[in-house]
């Protein structure tokens, strides 16, 4: 299987042959940053296009189909529109916090994005508590949302932000616990190690019942964490017009919008990494030739395809279910998901301790 380390090492050596060591580090940081930002933007565009097409398919419509082949350029046009839109100055807002909030949201999303192992040898941040860092980074986003709601000086925004706070803090627990279940199984918090240890079988198969329960809980909690339907209460259109980002315009709104889409991808990517083997190809023990063929498919394709399925499932939720009410939402978490998750964690510990997994 192709290892991206070859490419990165080659660039590294090339730079080292030209530049002194200190400059090499700086240059590499800048290069990686640029690549990361470009990838982030491209993912956002692809996801927005996918959402429109998927949503259209569910609703018996066509979706964008005028600009470019199959409407693919439509999203780019919308991005350009968003970039050149005026950012409206609003009276009576806390200007510092109001302008800061979207950046906090986008930075947290970007940090989490950079932890994801996209393909073999293609990880940006990879260290021994990687998954822990990812959770920590992604929860900073809630600060941005709370600030946005508070600084907007708008009652609807404030209600939306408060809902969002209650919701995200609650569902963080479920996300953390279901990730912990997998950490117990793999014995590592480093994302690359987690993926490597799934070479002989994905965790969803290896960890059978507890892993499957953890996956379902993770998917529900992940959907809630990204404020997507049926958990889109913080921006419930029919109740709060747009919730915490009601007052934002132009690219400031764009940041919230983009972050929401990429967060959805991050949730899907983490699900892929933890439960579905990350970029690992599908291997069936004993089927040597089948496994060899699977190995020919590049690891990046494997990863993106699996994530795409996850993203599709999350979109499917949104375009099918009606929205929950805030008390139902919190009841679901505290009375159902959390106890199930705790028991499941215990079950996983038992499974691992007595070596009951495959």
């Amino acid at each position: 299987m192709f290892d991206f380390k070859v490419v990165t090492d080659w660039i590294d050596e090339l730079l080292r042959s030209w530049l002194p060591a200190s400059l090499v580090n700086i240059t590499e940081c800048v290069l990686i940053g640029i690549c990361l930002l470009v990838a982030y933007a491209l993912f956002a565009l692809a996801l927005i296009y996918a959402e429109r097409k998927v949503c259209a398919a569910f609703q018996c419509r066509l979706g964008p189909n005028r600009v470019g082949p199959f409407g693919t350029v439509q999203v780019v046009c919308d991005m350009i529109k968003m970039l050149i839109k005026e950012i409206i100055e609003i009276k009576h807002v806390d200007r510092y916090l109001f302008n800061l909030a979207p950046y906090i949201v986008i930075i947290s999303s970007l940090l989490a994005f950079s932890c994801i192992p996209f393909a073999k040898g293609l990880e940006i941040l990879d260290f021994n508590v990687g998954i822990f860092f990812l959770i920590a980074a992604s929860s900073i986003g809630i600060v941005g949302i709370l600030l946005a709601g508070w600084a907007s000086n708008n009652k609807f925004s404030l209600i939306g932000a408060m809902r969002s706070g209650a919701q995200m803090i609650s569902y963080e627990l479920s996300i953390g616990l279901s990730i912990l279940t997998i950490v117990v199984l793999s014995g590592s918090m480093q994302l690359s190690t987690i993926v490597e240890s799934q070479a002989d079988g994905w965790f969803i198969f290896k960890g059978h019942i507890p892993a499957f329960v953890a996956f379902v809980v993770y998917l529900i909690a992940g959907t809630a964490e990204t404020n997507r339907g049926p958990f889109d209460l913080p921006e419930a259109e029919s109740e709060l017009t747009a919730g915490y980002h009601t007052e934002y315009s132009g690219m400031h709104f764009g940041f919230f919008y983009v972050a929401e889409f990429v967060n959805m991808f991050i949730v899907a990517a983490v699900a892929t990494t933890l439960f579905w083997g990350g970029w690992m190809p599908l291997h069936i023990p004993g089927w040597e030739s089948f496994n060899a063929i699977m190995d020919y498919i590049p690891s990046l394709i494997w990863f993106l395809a699996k994530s795409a399925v996850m993203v599709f499932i999350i979109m499917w939720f949104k375009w099918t279910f009606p929205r929950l009410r805030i008390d139902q939402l919190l009841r679901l978490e505290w009375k159902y998901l959390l106890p199930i998750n705790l028991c499941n964690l215990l079950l996983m510990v038992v499974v691992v301790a007595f070596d009951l997994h495959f």
Partner: protein
Amino acid sequence: MTRAMKEKILSIVPDATIEEKAFLTVSVPPISFHNLAVRLKNDKDLQFDYLVCMTGMDWGETLGVIYHLRSTTLKHEIVLRQETADRENPELPSVSDVWATANFNEREVFGFFGIRFINHPDMRRLFLRNDWVGYPFRKDYNTDPEINPVRLESEVNEDIVPTVELTESGELEEKVHTIFEDDEYVVNIGPQHPATHGVLRFRVSLEGEIVKKVDVNCGYIHRGIEKMCESLTYPQTLALTDRLDYLSAHMNRHALCMCIEEAMGIEVPERVKYIRTIMDELTRISSHILFYSTFCMDLGGLTAFLYGFRDREKILDMLEETCGGRLIQNYNCIGGVMADIHPNLVKRIKDFIKYLPPMLKEYHGLFTGNIIAQQRMKHIGILSREDAISYGVTGPSGRGSGWACDVRKIHPYGVYDKVDFNEVLYTEGDTFSRYMVRMDEIVESLHILEQLVDNIPAGDYAVKTKPIIKLPEGQYFKSVEAARGEFGVFIESHGDKYPYRLKFRSPGLPLVSVVDLLASHNKIADLIAIGGSLDYVVPDIDR
């Protein structure tokens, strides 16, 4: 029966004058009006528990109010009127404590005629701004734009409302009531809000997520249609009815046409009755499908919204082919309909009757059976049968509370007496039953169409009427079952070619008046769900 009623009323109020017209009309002196109202409602032989329509009147020398009452149990009807000669400071007793629907109606009358209602808890104008000068529905109103210019500044929200109360010593005292305290967290839902389905404004006092109180502010789309009608000839007034509840445009116009035809003594051909009934039912189906769409969207189910619109389109195409209009059909006219039905109509309706049931199954599969939807709807916003009658909540919302209020059954018009259909009733009175009544009514309407579509008799599609239509002097009231409830038309004619007073009893106003009752102590999300399930249409509330 009428004699017993007359005697009873005279025994309560000896100086009442009683006339026998289409309805028994009783003129009551204001001083004993409240007493009579209480007795009429509570007496076991009378039981007038439903105030159908309340009309403010300006008779030149006197100002007054006409009340149409109906008993939901004994089915008889009566008309009451009270008037005062004091045009400077007219005051009449309020009956808002007897029939809750009078609350909003009296506020409307106050705004338009300047009659203050004694003991009414909230004497604000319902539709007009507080700084409006004069009373526009009075005959001597000065329409000079200098007096009421288009005001560009926002209206100040008053948290304190004026009232006039009768003290125990028999004197009138002006008091104020507080709606919202200073430290309450009051949020405006509307006038520009996706869930109010138009320019309606709720001022909602919140405690966290919980709604404490809802104050309804109407009038953002009030066009004064009733006043406009007073300067239009009868055929001209027809055009305005479609602009009330635009989703039951056809039924509204049906009501006005029937009222005028009845007053003129025109008997419309059988073919017209069939066509009108078919069109009524098509409109009802399209309105209920739209309800499904918007209600699902209010609860966050966005896909269901488009499913509904996809199927409603089929009805609109049919209406377009025959009437020329899609949303607003302009099809009924005095003495019949504008044009004969399109030759394709019968076939298209037959196709549609086959097409819709599988789609309804899909609706139920997508939304009704969903656990989240069920939890959002069941046991939320319970409207008891008593409250439904007292507030005058008719139509599917009333039938969701177990009140058999279908005008098609009570006073059959068109050919409803010849078709077989069930009046859908649910007794829980919650959001879910209001929703289910509408979904089941779609099936019933299809059933009605099935019976009618093959049997449309041959004949004229309209009778010839005189070029100038004048109604004989008198008062006429006629109501139909619109998609949202009982839509009534009251005409007082003085023999002219213009109506002296034309009042529309809109089903929307009672619907919006129960929002406070249902949504208090529920969550914000429930307020939206309740509003959606009541399915009011704002131009119908505001008129």
